[in-house]
């Protein structure tokens, strides 16, 4: 019995040494088995509808990639799985800064994907730049994102049309399609300028849209008169007075640069309360199932610029991939994905393609690979059929189209039809019976 205690102690010590040895030795030679992708998304706060769409789409992409064996990294000579880390920016600048700092320093992500709201992304870009992390930005549309010169943006890649891109396309659509339709229907002279009003979020995004509209009118010499440009604060929910002010300027068309939680009450209040019987346009970030549901009949005949729609699939080579993505998303999460989800889904695939191309997960090598990458288009139609950042500002180039929303009495919900450009058109743009030019 005297020795029993000693034997027990020796046994415990031996076991401890063996366990410690077992647990530490392999770790010393272990190589990272994952490509860690940080997803910056607004999981809470006003933009959480969009944020969840982005996160879930990223999850879907990662699962698809991992189901196919992951990503082959040449330098390691083996396949790695994709591991996602969620960074909730809380729909605020400060939240975004906290999220990216944590992902970079604690989670040691190899690459960042996502980022919604130009104001939020702009606020955390400097942290990303200082730490030299490649960042595929899929949801912030201010052109300054990769063009700003106050920080080093060379490792940032913009996979999202800028306000310049869609502001220009939307204004061209108004000039080519809406203006002639208004003039013809109401017997106005063909040269009558269309009266356009812009109601914009007081942020880089909103100001970017306003600037693009002005620039397009001037550059292309369009017969469009900007009769009102009214700003509102981000997150605003009461637009009645602003819309009354706009109504007094008698616009033919109103172009809001707003997020989903702003656009829906704005259009509802315009039609219901203020009596603005006019055509509303919308920026692509609103192309989300919640938009169609939230607007109800007040969205009838409104127009939204898009590059991915939950309910419209443009003709062309990507139709099958769009259907597969929508069905995959629907099967896993219920409902359909929105546009920000689509670009984030692609963003994860692009990050993986960069790791394969670089043959490494080193941040600098990933960034280098991204700058010359050419990934075949997936669920969004791209110029040249590829996702590429091979231009001075590392911006991918999407093919954009316009959809008109129409009330489906059977579904009791709005559904879109593509009305522009001609090569993708499903149905021509129409002015509804209740429309009044110079509504006021």
């Amino acid at each position: 019995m005297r020795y029993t205690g000693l034997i027990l102690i020796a046994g415990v010590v031996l076991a401890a040494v063996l366990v410690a040895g077992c647990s530490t030795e392999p770790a010393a030679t272990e190589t990272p088995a994952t490509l860690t992708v940080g997803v910056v998304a607004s999981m809470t706060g006003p933009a959480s509808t969009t944020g969840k769409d982005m996160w879930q789409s990223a999850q879907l992409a990662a699962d698809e990639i991992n189901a196919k064996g992951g990503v082959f990294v040449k330098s390691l000579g083996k396949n790695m799985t994709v591991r996602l880390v969620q960074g909730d920016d809380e729909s605020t600048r400060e939240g975004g800064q906290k999220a990216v700092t944590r992902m970079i320093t604690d989670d040691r992500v190899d690459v960042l994907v996502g980022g919604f709201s130009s104001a939020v992304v702009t606020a955390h870009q400097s942290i990303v730049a200082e730490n030299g992390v490649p960042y595929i930005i899929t949801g912030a549309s201010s052109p300054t994102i990769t063009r700003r010169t106050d920080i080093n943006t060379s490792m940032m890649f913009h996979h999202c049309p800028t306000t310049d891109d869609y502001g220009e396309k939307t204004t061209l659509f108004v000039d080519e399609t809406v203006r002639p339709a208004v003039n013809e229907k109401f017997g106005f002279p063909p040269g009558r300028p269309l009266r356009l009003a812009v109601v914009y979020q007081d942020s880089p995004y909103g100001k970017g849209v306003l600037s693009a509209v002005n620039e397009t009118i001037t550059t292309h010499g369009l017969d469009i008169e900007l009769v009102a440009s009214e700003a509102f604060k981000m997150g605003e929910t009461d637009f009645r007075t602003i819309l009354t002010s706009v109504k007094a300027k008698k616009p033919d068309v109103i172009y809001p640069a707003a997020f989903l939680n702003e656009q829906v009450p704005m259009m509802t209040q315009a039609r219901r309360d203020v009596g603005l019987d006019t055509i509303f346009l919308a920026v692509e970030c609103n192309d989300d199932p919640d938009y169609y549901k939230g607007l109800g009949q007040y969205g009838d005949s409104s127009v939204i610029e898009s590059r991915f729609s939950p309910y419209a699939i443009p003709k062309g080579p990507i139709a099958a991939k769009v259907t597969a993505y929508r069905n995959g998303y629907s099967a896993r999460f219920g409902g359909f994905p929105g546009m920000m989800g689509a670009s984030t889904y692609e963003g994860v695939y692009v990050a993986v393609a960069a790791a394969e191309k670089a043959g490494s997960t080193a941040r600098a090598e990933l960034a280098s690979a991204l700058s010359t990458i050419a990934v075949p288009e997936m669920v969004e139609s791209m110029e040249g059929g590829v996702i590429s950042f091979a231009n001075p500002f590392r911006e991918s180039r999407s093919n954009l189209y316009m959809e008109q929303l129409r009330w489906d009495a059977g579904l009791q919900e709005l559904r879109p039809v593509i009305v522009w450009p001609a090569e993708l058109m499903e149905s021509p743009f129409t002015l509804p019976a209740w429309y009044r030019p110079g509504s006021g």
Partner: protein
Amino acid sequence: MTLDPGTLLQILFWGLYAGCIYILLATGVNLIFGVMKTVNFAHGELLMIGAYVTWSLFVLTGVNPYLLLVATVPVLLALGVAVERLAFRPVLGSNKLNEIFLSIGLIYLFQNGAALLWGDDYQSLRSPFEAISVPIADFRLPLDYLIIIGVTVAVLVGLQLLLRRTRLGLALRATSQNRKAAMLSGIDVERMDMLAFGLGAALAGAAGTLWAVSGQVFDPYMGSVPAIKAFAIVILGGLGSIPGAILGGLFYGLAESTATYTLGGAWKDAISFVLLIIVLVIRPTGLFGERGE
């Protein structure tokens, strides 16, 4: 800038509508402050919960959301009583900082609780009267806004009757005027605290119902801005003064609306605080501060 009478009337109406929401919120803040001498920074979250309670009941029952005020107000009253009893009472009188941090903590508790219960996504509900409008001058005012104004007036009249014509109201006013004297005359001041907090929360709940039914969206994080404005209105009208809160709320709503029209939407929040600063410089106690206190 030309302003036709129809447009002017519309602008004033939107201001009046916004003022109604602010009045209900600010009156609740003032009632709580008047009796308990504490500021509930989470008051905007009670408005948010009121909106969600109405929305939930509407989704479950399909009953006219205005009628749901009858259910929402008691739910919020009960919540207010519970918050006072469980959270404020233990720290009341200990240290003002404790009370401040407690109510700031409640903001996060309510926001996260609402997000957990109802989700982060914004919600909205449709009034059954949204297609009905009333011609006023040369514009058609949706019936909903007249109902909202009417409901606000009815709630305020009810509150005045409670405070002026009942023994309970007398006890509340006595506690508000001199807590020690009220205690010495046999009034259960802790019960008055509970009642004041409950009534304040109920008023915020009513504001939440009207917010939702007017076509504004709401999410778990929407309470902060209305709350800040309610505090500004309370300071503008005079701490503890209910007439001050009513006039301050109206003044704020109209100022916001006219500033938005004349200066632009970016000025909507700023102009109210500019006015507040001006009023405080001229009259540091607020419009009704001395009388109310």
